[in-house]
């Protein structure tokens, strides 16, 4: 199992040298980014990765409109696409566009919530794509089952704040406008608290492409790591809301073994709580009245 990590700062690539690859993007085409890199910066990262035997993945996870494709075409002409290891795409229209650019072998389908069974995980096999993410909200049992029947590489978002809501609307800006709030807060510092779930802080982020709400707790995979290694090809660590030092420390824990004191230190420094996500939590299929 290889590890991939998001990047905050171009100058920290070496700090993250325990990773097998970097995930980067540009805010014109990506959402929930740790940082938006220009095409020049992306090429710098590609060169660094090439020289240091690392992989590089371009994140294109926004929902695409027809007007976006000419811009993307120009952008892809600017970056060294053929030196990218992969392109992570969350829109099937985008994937169709990438087919037209003969980039099939680089495509990784990230359907967020949509790859919940063997078939839907593998359904782009006929197009010879690189791989697919499994859905974020399925159990370990489901992941292992899909993994045993995978027909291409299996990617898993394994650590970080998992997104649970993506709206095109700018909900924080709208809220401020509606109530005439002249408040300029830290973009990455917002959270929501639901009225009966006191103390649970749901991070909320507004970016160029809309608004995103996240689970209140960082999902971690330490308790199930050995099982995951049986089927997962790429384990992704998303350090959104954190920094590259956090990424370096988390990487080290996954690669070198769980260290309780180090974890406690991280939880304290970053003021975060961890849980097992949906690995052991089964969601309900409602066939009948509640």
């Amino acid at each position, binding site marked *: 199992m290889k590890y991939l990590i998001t990047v905050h700062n171009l100058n920290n690539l070496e700090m993250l040298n325990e990773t097998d690859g970097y995930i980067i993007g540009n805010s014109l085409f990506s959402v929930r980014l740790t940082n938006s890199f220009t095409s020049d910066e992306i090429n710098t990262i590609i060169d660094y990765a090439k020289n240091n035997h690392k992989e590089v993945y371009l994140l294109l996870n926004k929902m695409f409109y*027809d007007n976006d494709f000419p811009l993307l075409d120009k952008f892809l002409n600017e970056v060294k696409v053929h030196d990218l290891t992969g392109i992570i795409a969350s829109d099937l229209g985008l994937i169709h566009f990438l087919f037209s650019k003969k980039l099939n072998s680089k495509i990784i389908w990230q359907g967020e*919530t949509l790859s919940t069974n063997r078939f839907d995980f593998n359904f782009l096999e006929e197009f010879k794509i690189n791989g697919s993410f499994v859905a974020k909200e399925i159990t370990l049992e489901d992941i292992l089952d899909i993994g045993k029947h995978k027909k291409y590489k299996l990617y898993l978002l394994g650590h970080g704040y998992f997104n649970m809501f*993506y709206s095109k609307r700018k909900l924080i800006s709208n809220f401020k406008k509606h109530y005439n709030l002249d*408040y300029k807060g830290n973009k990455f510092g917002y959270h929501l608290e639901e009225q009966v779930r006191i103390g649970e802080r749901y991070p909320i982020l507004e970016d160029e492409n809309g608004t995103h709400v996240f*689970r209140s707790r960082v999902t971690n995979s330490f308790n199930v790591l050995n099982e995951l290694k049986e089927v997962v090809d790429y384990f992704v660590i998303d350090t959104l809301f954190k920094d590259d030092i956090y990424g370096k420390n988390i990487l080290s824990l996954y690669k070198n073994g769980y260290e309780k004191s180090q974890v406690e230190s991280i939880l304290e420094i970053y003021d975060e709580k961890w849980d097992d996500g949906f690995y052991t939590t089964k969601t309900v*299929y409602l066939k009948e009245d509640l």
Partner: protein
Amino acid sequence: MIELLAPAGDLEKLKYALIYGADAVYIGGNEFSLRARASNFTIETIKEGVKFAHQLGKKVYVTTNIIPHEEDILGLVEYLKALEEANVDAIICASPLIIKTAIKHTNLEIHLSTQQSAINNHALLFWKDYGVKRVVLGRELTLDEINQLSKDLLDIEVFIHGGMCMSFSGRCSLSNTLTNRDANRGGCAHSCRWQYLLYNNCKLISEEYFSMSSKDLMAIKAVPKLIDIGVKSLKVEGRMKSLHYIATVIKTYRMLIDEYLTTGKIKDTTFYEDEIYKAENRLTDLGYFDGNIGPDKQLYEFLGERPNQAFIGLVEDYNLETMVAKIEQRNYFKIGDTIEVFSPNEPNKTFVLDNMLNEDLEEIEVARHAKQIVYIKLPFNVSKYSMLRKVL
């Protein structure tokens, strides 16, 4: 010809939707459908609904739009074959698994659910090649963006009325996280409509509740453009809505579409908006159609649904000779109330209630019991399927 597509949560609503002017209805079965609480059609009632619709020259589509987990797949082939045997006109799917299974084992026409959020031409091309006949577009499109989509590739269906997901459809797991109810398997708890407070760096920035709740969509002003663009089907959301809501909304859009097709213009959109508001109990807006995604599109202080007491009864039967209607009560009303009679193919008519008998033909002043049968002599003719509203 443009299609007006109505939701139907049960057989009665299916019949009323078609009688009140829908060209087709979409319904959910007991399996593989979102809106589990609205989906109470068995294969037998689906057959009955299809027979009723086909006698009127209209269509029935069945939603099989869950994103299944492996454990949910059992019985899928048999279910799809049963839908085919029931003569349904199409199924609405979101999962490639269900689409491919239907293609392999049946000749069912396949419509792609809005849960796949198809919003660009490349997506249309992808799904056309995958075997889909019609795409229900994602709601996050302006009229100009819809106009850019190629209508030659496949049929395009667009939501024109009803509730709006705040998140891109199919991509939301708020409900999964907060309640363990899987939004993509019929369990959406509408957690986006709950009350939240917004903090920055752990500091509360306002005592007001943060809104992730959208006004409902009402596209009366957009319908002419959608027709001109070449959209194939105009869809109303709301399989869990009431009979009165379905009938009112469908009749209103029927009249609107017919006026535009007949005259090439809409004389007075206010008339249609007023008609809708006789049943609509949430604030409404043009959604994404006008390109505005600002704060006026959202619900802030007003989150709850206003109780709507206007709907008071259904005409079960009518005697042409005596002019007495048999009414099933749906809300409280009494002698002296001004009542509007609302019928499928006629203008609304009003009268003041001055007589009423109970089932034992005794004079009564008030109809206070749900589903109570009363008899009223009317000053004009009505037909079965007419509805009574109290003028507030």
